[in-house]
């Protein structure tokens, strides 16, 4: 493994991923309550795992350019799809946990302001529950 530019870029991406995953894990233990912990856990580990995916994509693309075997390109594509799955699912999971915590009655620690306390939230009826009548044919509201 000689130090070309591509190799240096791959190693830098790998180190960024290690640093941010470590920071996320540290934040999980340093912050005082569940909301601030979610800040650290969601953002940092998503970013770190994103850079792990970037590393693997760059590594496989480099090998594909050097050796020309299609299986390297295939691995880059699959890693890209794993990256998209992570980017879509992780913030939504964090949102679900935060909402559950607030509904359980956990107050944000050291809070200076809480607009959600006592707010009257309106929810739509889920569309899946409707009967199969004309509602499907009406179009968007």
């Amino acid at each position, binding site marked *: 493994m000689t130090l070309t530019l591509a190799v240096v870029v791959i190693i830098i991406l790998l180190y960024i991923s*290690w640093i941010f*995953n*470590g920071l996320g894990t540290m934040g999980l233990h340093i912050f005082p309550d569940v909301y601030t912990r979610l800040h650290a856990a969601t953002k940092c580990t998503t970013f770190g*795992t994103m850079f792990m995916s970037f*590393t693997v994509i760059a590594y496989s693309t480099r090998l594909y350019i050097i050796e020309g075997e299609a299986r390297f390109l295939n691995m880059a594509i699959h890693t890209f799809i794993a990256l998209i799955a*992570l980017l879509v699912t992780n913030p939504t999971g964090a949102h679900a946990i935060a909402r559950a915590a607030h509904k359980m009655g*956990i107050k944000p620690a050291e809070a200076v302001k809480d607009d959600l306390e006592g707010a009257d939230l309106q929810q739509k009826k889920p569309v899946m529950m409707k009967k199969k009548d004309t509602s499907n044919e009406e179009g968007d509201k």
Partner: protein
Amino acid sequence: MIEFTTLFYGSALLFGVLIIICALRVFLGPTTPDRVVGLDTINTLVVGSMIALGAAMWETLFIDIAIVYAVLSFITTLFIAKYLEGGED
């Protein structure tokens, strides 16, 4: 010189250590959502280490499993959150 394979095995090992540190939060966490946060972080780290292991061993299958694991762990998190909210809606 260190090979890339060694680096990827090393990052999988590092993620394993981080998973153990997150598991401490699952055991300690004063409230239930704290434990769920730890579990969610562990899921993300498992996906990351699967990608690293897939690159180290040249198995594309590992990355396919990582995709499925990401989606399934997301559904698990959603169901736990729904359960914690209570069942009125």
